[in-house]
């Protein structure tokens, strides 16, 4: 490989050529994604006279070696160590980055998960062990959102984004084939053919008007629920193109309209703002009162016969169950579909027998768990066919 690259560059001094090829091999071993193509490009560039000044030479190598902003610091380090002494770098770096992908890293961290979380109680360990799945990524998909360890979060986010994008793509395709051009609209076709002397050069087809659904989310942000709410919000926002409008409310002791935050900024920033501004985030729950508040003040504007309402809550209500029952009945009357997501449902042996939950259940169209990535993905069926 090395000799091939070198032989195509006859006019560059042999030692310079060797140094450059060695540099690229070194960079490849230490985490930059560079191959033969890049090496050849660099040799060609060096031949143009870019070795005359060290800074030009470095700029040249940098623009060839790097592909993202994240590569820049890695390059700096590699560059420094290579030209000052390769040995030191290997010694000083105990964990040398190799060609592992984040997915492989995730697998590695999951192996640690069972041990690293010992301090957090036996129950969680049990859950981690009980998960079935062929490999770590599969496991991650089935891990309860609350149990995602801090070290896994970036990998989890990456995986979630990837799966959601795939799903979004699937939905996009489905819509396309579902709305194929219909019958020819003769009226318009003839009108359009007039300027062309009656030749129907452009056929106008009638198409079924696409009706997008409106989605309203009521998210419980008390205590243990906030993490699930966070991921659900993220999930729905990925799908925002499929809905006419996304409305989001958070509740625990009081209801709060958070839609404005979703619109003004990018999602990541919106989530930061919501979590810092929702005063009631992670405190006790009064579901009934909050839903009644929603009914009284927002339902009229946000709900219609084509809207979907998603309530995410554990149903552990500290308020009056009658209020909750009336509120949920009121919402059901005004909307097409009411989905209640209860992460506790994912727990083995869970029965919806708490006061609040059992009173609300008769009015709910769909009662699901949504506690793992996989169960979130299952929502696709409901969201694309309602």
């Amino acid at each position, binding site marked *: 490989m090395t000799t091939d690259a070198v032989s195509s560059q006859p006019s560059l001094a042999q030692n310079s050529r060797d140094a450059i090829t060695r540099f690229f091999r070194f960079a490849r071993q230490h985490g930059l*994604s560079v191959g033969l193509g890049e090496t050849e490009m660099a040799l060609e560039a060096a031949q143009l006279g870019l070795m005359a000044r060290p800074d030009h030479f470095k*700029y040249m190598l940098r623009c060839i070696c*790097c592909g993202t902003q994240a590569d820049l610091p890695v390059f700096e380090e590699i560059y420094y160590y290579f030209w000052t002494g390769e040995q030191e770098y290997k010694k000083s770096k105990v964990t040398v980055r190799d060609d592992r992908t984040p997915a492989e890293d995730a697998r590695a961290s999951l192996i640690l998960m069972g041990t690293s979380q010992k301090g957090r109680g036996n129950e969680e360990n049990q859950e981690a062990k009980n998960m079935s799945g062929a490999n770590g990524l599969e496991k991650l998909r089935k891990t309860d959102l609350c149990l995602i360890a801090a070290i896994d979060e970036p990998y989890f986010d990456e995986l979630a984004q990837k799966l959601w994008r795939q799903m979004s793509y699937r939905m996009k395709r489905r819509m396309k084939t579902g709305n194929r051009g219909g019958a020819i609209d003769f009226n318009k076709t003839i009108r359009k053919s007039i300027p062309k002397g009656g030749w129907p050069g452009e056929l106008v087809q009638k198409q079924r008007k696409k009706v997008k659904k409106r989605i309203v989310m009521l998210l419980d942000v008390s205590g243990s629920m906030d993490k699930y709410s966070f991921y659900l919000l993220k999930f729905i926002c990925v799908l925002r193109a499929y809905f006419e409008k996304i409305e989001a409310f958070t509740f625990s002791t009081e209801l709060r309209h958070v839609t404005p935050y979703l619109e*003004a900024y990018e999602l990541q*920033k919106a989530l930061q703002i919501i979590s810092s501004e929702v005063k009631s985030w992670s405190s006790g729950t009064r579901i009934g009162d909050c839903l009644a508040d929603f009914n009284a003040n927002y339902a009229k504007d946000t709900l219609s016969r084509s809207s979907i309402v998603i309530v995410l809550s554990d149903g552990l209500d500290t308020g009056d169950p009658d209020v909750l029952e009336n509120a949920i009945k009121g919402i059901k009357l005004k909307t097409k579909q009411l989905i209640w997501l209860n992460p506790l449902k994912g727990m083995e042996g869970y029965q919806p027998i708490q006061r609040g939950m059992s009173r609300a259940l008769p009015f709910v169209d769909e009662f699901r768990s949504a506690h793992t990535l996989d169960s979130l993905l299952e929502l696709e069926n409901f969201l694309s066919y309602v």
Partner: protein
Amino acid sequence: MTAKDEIAALVVEFEKYGYVLSEELATILFLNQKLEKPVLLEGNPGVGKTAVAKCLASHHQTDLIRLQCYEGLDVNAAIYEWNYQKQLLNIKIMENETDRHAVSREIFGMEFLLQRPLLQSITSPKPVVLLIDEVDRADEEFEAFLLEILSDFQISIPEVGTVVAHHKPFVILTSNRTRELSDALKRRCLYHWVDYPDFKKEVQILLKSLPDLDENLARQVVLVVQELRDMKLNKSPGIAESIDWARTLLALDSLTLDKLTMENSLGAVLKSQDDIRKVKTDHLTRLADLIN
């Protein structure tokens, strides 16, 4: 002329067009020209990514062909489309033609193609600058179309065959990093991260783009803008905003930046109501003190 001189010449040349080029970017543009490789510029909005392409076109004294990417951009809008109306009319004209192959040869000729930016750039009689702007906004599938063009400078059209570039265009891609680009695309490009400039350079940029601007005022504007960038606002002001602001101050005949002028013209530099409110209530006095 050696590489060193050519790079230095590029810096001088770009200065004429009002663009302060760093030595690093100059090296990359030099390589873009010599190696015929596309340049991928990434960076925050408003740091002058698009302007590089414009100046490069002026530098090469050629046209700039711009493809603005967006979600749902497809081949018809980016590469080519058949002119169906013209084809149908031609079929009508050739109604008496008995040789069916002659008809199809006729209507699938190059003059029935509506050329979109990418095809335009490779069929142009002289090398042009092709700017593929905000490539991260296009769908991932679209990146696959780009690969053929960026590596071989050719486009395959099933009915016609492969169109090979007469002259390879100088390609500049820009991205705002709203998503990660595919590895295949990145490997074909020379990468450069365009960062916000330092104080001295930004003052220089302001004075270059607005020759009427007083140097002292330019310093004040840059001082405040750089301070604003450190504040973690929703929309950090870019260089475009500093220039806008300086231009606003010129229009207002302000000779110096004080608290009142700053308060009144903040809309030129911050483009979000929340940011303006935050700065006005929490930071305005501090910023005014900073200038003095």
